[in-house]
C-alpha cells in the first residue's frame, strides 16, 4: 500500500517541473487569502492588476516585463509558508509580497529571514512585524495599527468624554490596537478612564449581551475595533438598543468601503473612523488612479485596491532602483525608497522598514441611504510614527 505513496509523490514531482524562466521577465511572488477573505482580496487583486498593466504598458522594469505569480494561503500561516516555498524554490521569484492576516504576515516574515529573501508585507497591521519581531528582510506598506491608533487617539482626545469602553475582537489585532489607543489617549488626557472592555471572538460576536454589558458601565464614549460581519451585528443591535445614542464612538477601519458599504441605510452617524472615502479625495494622484481603475473594472475601488495597487508600485520602484536584483541589492534599494501612491508619496523608512503611508480620518454619515465618510482629513504617516531612532530601538538586535 505504500506503493500508492510513491506514485503520489511522483505525481507531485512531475507537476513541479520548473517553469523555465523566460528571458526579459522579472518574476515576483505574491501570497494572499484569496479563498478565505474574498471581500478584501477581490478589490486588492484588481488594484494589483491595474498597477501591473500600467507598469508593463510603460515598458516594464527597464525593458523587462514584470510578472506577478499569485498564490492562495486560505488564511493559514502554514499554507502561506508552503506557497512561499513553492514561489522561491520552484518559480524562482526575486522577492515575495502580500499577506492580509497578521499571523500570516509574521510567518512569512520569519520565513524570509530564514531563507534570506525579501518580503514586502502588504496589509498585515500588526506592529510586531516591523518592531518587536522586525527583521532585515521584511518591509511593510500598510498604515500600521500603531499609526491608526495614534490618529484616532488624537481625535478622541478632543472629545469631552472621560469614561471610555472598548469592544475589540479577541486576537492580536484587537488587543494591540486597544493597548496603543489607551496608552496614547491617557498621555494626552490623564483624566480619562476606561470603565469596561469586551473581547468577543472574531466572527462570533454575541452582540446583544456584549452591548448590554458595555451599556451597563455607562461610558461617555466607545472604542470599537470589530469589522465585517461582527461590525454589522454590533451596529444593528446597538442602533435598536440605543446604546450608541448620545455617545461618541471611535471606530477603527469602519470607514473602509469593505466594511462601511454593507451597513447601507443603517450606517450610524457621527462615528469617528479611519477609512477610504474614494468619492471625496481630490488630489491629482488619486483622481488619476480612480479614473484608470473605474475604466478597467466598471466598479469603484475599495481600500484593498489601494493596497494592491501600491504594493505593486512599490515592488516596481524597488526593482527599477537597482540593477542588482539579488536579495542584498533589493534590501538596499528598499531603504528610503520613495514610491508614488494614490495617497501621495511614501517612503520606506530605513530604520524600521515601515512605509509612511497615511490614512483618512473622518466621520460617518448617511447619504442617499448609503454610508459615507464626511469631514475627511488626510493624516500624514510620518506625523504618527515614532522617530526613526526610537523605532530602531524597538527592533531586535541584528
Amino acid at each position, binding site marked *: 500500500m505504500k506503493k*500508492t505513496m510513491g506514485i503520489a509523490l511522483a505525481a507531485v514531482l512531475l507537476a513541479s517541473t520548473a517553469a523555465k524562466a523566460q528571458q526579459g521577465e522579472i518574476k515576483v511572488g505574491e501570497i494572499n487569502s484569496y479563498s478565505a477573505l474574498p471581500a478584501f482580496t477581490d478589490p486588492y487583486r484588481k488594484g494589483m492588476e491595474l498597477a501591473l498593466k500600467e507598469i508593463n504598458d510603460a515598458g516594464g522594469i527597464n525593458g523587462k516585463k514584470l510578472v506577478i505569480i499569485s498564490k492562495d494561503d486560505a488564511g493559514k500561516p502554514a499554507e502561506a509558508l508552503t506557497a512561499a516555498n513553492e514561489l522561491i524554490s520552484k518559480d524562482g521569484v526575486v522577492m515575495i509580497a502580500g499577506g492580509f492576516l497578521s499571523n500570516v504576515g509574521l510567518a512569512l516574515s520569519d520565513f524570509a*529571514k*530564514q531563507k534570506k529573501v525579501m518580503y514586502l508585507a502588504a496589509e498585515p497591521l500588526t506592529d510586531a512585524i516591523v518592531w518587536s519581531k522586525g527583521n532585515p528582510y521584511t518591509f511593510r506598506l500598510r498604515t500600521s495599527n500603531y499609526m491608526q491608533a495614534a490618529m484616532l487617539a488624537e481625535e478622541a482626545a478632543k472629545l469631552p468624554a472621560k469614561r471610555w469602553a472598548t469592544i475589540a475582537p479577541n486576537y492580536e489585532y484587537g488587543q494591540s490596537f486597544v493597548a496603543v489607543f489607551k496608552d496614547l489617549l491617557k498621555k494626552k488626557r490623564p483624566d480619562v478612564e476606561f470603565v469596561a472592555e469586551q473581547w468577543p471572538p472574531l466572527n462570533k460576536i454575541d452582540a446583544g449581551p456584549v452591548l448590554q454589558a458595555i451599556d451597563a458601565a455607562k461610558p461617555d464614549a466607545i472604542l470599537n475595533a470589530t469589522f465585517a460581519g461582527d461590525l454589522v451585528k454590533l451596529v444593528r443591535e446597538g442602533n435598536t438598543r440605543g446604546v450608541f445614542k448620545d455617545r461618541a464612538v471611535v471606530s477603527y477601519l469602519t470607514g473602509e468601503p469593505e466594511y462601511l458599504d*454593507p451597513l447601507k441605510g443603517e450606517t450610524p452617524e457621527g462615528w469617528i473612523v479611519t477609512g477610504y472615502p474614494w468619492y471625496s479625495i481630490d488630489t491629482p494622484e488619486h483622481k488619476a488612479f480612480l479614473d484608470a481603475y473605474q475604466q478597467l473594472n466598471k466598479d469603484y475601488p475599495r481600500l484593498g485596491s489601494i493596497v494592491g495597487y501600491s504594493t505593486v508600485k512599490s515592488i516596481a520602484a524597488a526593482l527599477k532602483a537597482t540593477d542588482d536584483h539579488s536579495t542584498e541589492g533589493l534590501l538596499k534599494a528598499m531603504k528610503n525608497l520613495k514610491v508614488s501612491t494614490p495617497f501621495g508619496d511614501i517612503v520606506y523608512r530605513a530604520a524600521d522598514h515601515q512605509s509612511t503611508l497615511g490614512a483618512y480620518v473622518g466621520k460617518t454619515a448617511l447619504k442617499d441611504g448609503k454610508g459615507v465618510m464626511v469631514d475627511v482629513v488626510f493624516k500624514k504617516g510620518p506625523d504618527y510614527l515614532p522617530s526613526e531612532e526610537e523605532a530602531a530601538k524597538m527592533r531586535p538586535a541584528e
Partner: protein
Amino acid sequence: MEFLLVQALSGLASAASLFLVASGLSIIFGVMRIVNFAHGAFYMLGAYVAFTLTDRFAGPLGFWGGVLVASLVVAAVGALMEMVLLRRIYHAPELFQLLATFGVTLMVEDLVVLIWGSEDLMGPRAPGFTGAVSVFGRLVPSYDFLLIALGPLVLGLLWLLFHRTRWGVLVRAATQDREMVASLGVNQKWLFTSVFALGVFLAAFGGALQIPRTTVSHAMDLSIIVEVFVVVVIGGLGSVTGAFVAAILVSELNAFGILILPQISMITVFLVMAVVLVVRPYGLFGKPEGAPRAAAGISIRPWRPMTNLERSGVAAVVVVVALMPLFAGDYTLSVGSEILVYVLFAASLHFLMTVGGLSSFGHAAYFGLGAYGAALLVKYFGAPMEAALVIGPVLGLVGAVLFGWFCVRLSGVYFAMLTLAFAQITWSVAFQWVEVTGGDNGILGIWPSSWASTPQGFFWLALAIVVVCVAALRMLVFSPFGFGLRAARDSALRSEAIGINGKSTQWIAFIVAGTFAGIAGALFAFLKGSVFPETLGIPTSVDGLVMVLLGGIETVSGAVVGAVVYKALAIWLMSKTELSKLVLGGVIVLLVVAFPKGIVGFLEDLRHRRPKAPGGAGSEGAVDVAKVEAAR
C-alpha cells in the same frame, strides 16, 4: 437587578437562534446517527437564498414568505443530497457520512462566493420587528422577543410531530430498529429522506432568521457548525428538549460570563460540554446507548501481519522514497516532508480509531501540543532541534495522559465530542496565553539544525522518523497489547471476562496515539519554522479524520495512503486554483461514492476477490478468525 434580567433576556434570544439550528441537527443526528457536517452549509444557504428573496420582494409578505420559501428550497436541496449521496453510503462504516458531508461543505463554501459574490450582504430588517421594547428602562429589540417565542414554539411543534403523528411514530420506531420497521412494510428510505429534509429545513430556517441581525457571508457555516454540534451533545443525542435546554444553558452562561471575564466567549460552549460530559456521560437528557457500535464494525477479513513478500515491497518503496532527494527539487522535497508529517499524524489517529475503536474529533490537540512543546523548548531554553524533537512530544504525551483519562470513560460520539472539547480548551490556552505562547501571532524562529536545514536533510530526517514510528504502530497492532485493545473494542464484556482491563487498555492506546501525534507535531514545527494556534484547531483535527476515512477505517495502514492522497491533492490544488475547496470537496464526494470502504479498503476488496492460491494467505486459522470477526 434590572440589568441582570435584561442580560438574561439577551441570552435567551441568543439561545433561541442557537436552538433553531441545533434542533435540525439533533433530529438528523439522533434519528439517523449521521454526523452531518454539512448542517452549517445548509444554514448558510438558507441565509443566502432568503437574502435574495427578501431583497427582491419587499414588505411583510415578501420577507416572511421569503424566509419560508428559502427554507423549503434548501430543504429540497438537502433531500436531493440525501437521495443521491448519503443513500449510497448508509452501509459504509460509521463516520463515513461525515466525510461525504465534509466534501459537500467545502464545495458549498466556494459555490456561494461564485453565485452571490465576495462581498458581505446585508438583508432587510424583519417588517414589524424593527424597533425595541423598553424593559426596565432598557431597550430590548422586539426581534429578540420573536426569537425567544419561536424557540419553544418549534420545540412544541416537533414534539407533536414525533408523538402525535403516524410519521413521527414510524420515525421513532426506525430509530430503534431499522430492519424491523422495514420488515413491517414501511419504506424506510423515504422515512429517512423526510427526516433529513426536516432537519435541513430547520437549519435553513435558522439561517434565514439571522438576516435581520447580521450579514450573509461565505464563512457563516464555520461560525456555527461546531457550536451546534456541541449543543446537541450537551443535550444528549436524540433529545430535542435536551438541545433546547443546552442552548439556554450555554447562552446564559456566556451572557453572564462575559461580565466577569470578557474573553470567555471563545470557550464557553466547550467548557460547558467538558463539565457536562464528565459528570453525565450521555449528556443532560441522553440515555445510555445500547451495545455501542464499534467504529470498525463490518470488517470480515482478519488483519494479519505482512508477508515477507509484502514487507520487501514496502521496503522497496521506502528505498525509492529515500532516494528522492537525489533527483527531486527543493519544493517537491518540502512538500514531501509535509506529507510525511501528516502520514504520521494520520497513522496515530488511525491507531486510536481503528484498532482502539475510539473516534477522536480532537486529535489535533496532541499534534499541536507536540509542536508547542518543541517550540517552547527552543524559545525559552534554547534547545537544539535534536533535543526539542525528543522532549517536545512529551507535552503531547502529558496532554494525552490527562485528557485520555477522562475521555476513555465515554464511548461513541460522546467520546469524540469530549476529545473535541479538550482540544478546543487547549487551543484557547495557546491562543489566549499571549505572554508564553505569543497568542495568535505564534512562536517564530523554530528552524532545524544546520544539518537538517536543507530540504534534502529535513526530508531524510522526516522519512526516518516517520518510517520508524509507523512501523512501531503497526507492530503494536499485532502485539499482545494490540490484540487486547481489539478485544476491548469488539466486546467489552468478553474481553473483561478474560481479564483485560478495557478502560486502562484504551487509556494506554490514547496515550500512544497522542505521543505519536506529538512527534508529528514537533516535526511540523521545525518544517514550518513557526507554530500557531491553528495547529491545535478544529480544521487540523478534521484533516486527520478525513485522511483516516479516505484511506479506509477498517484497514491496518490505510491512513498512510489517505494522508498521502489527501495532502498531496490539497497542496497541489491550493497552488493551482483559488477554487481549491470546490475541487477538493468534489473529489472527496466522488471518492466516497466510489470507495465506500476507503481507498485501501477498496484495494483489499479487489485483491481478495481473486481466487486464492492454495496454501496461500487464506489458511485454515485465518478463516476461523474471520468467522469470529464476522460473528461479532
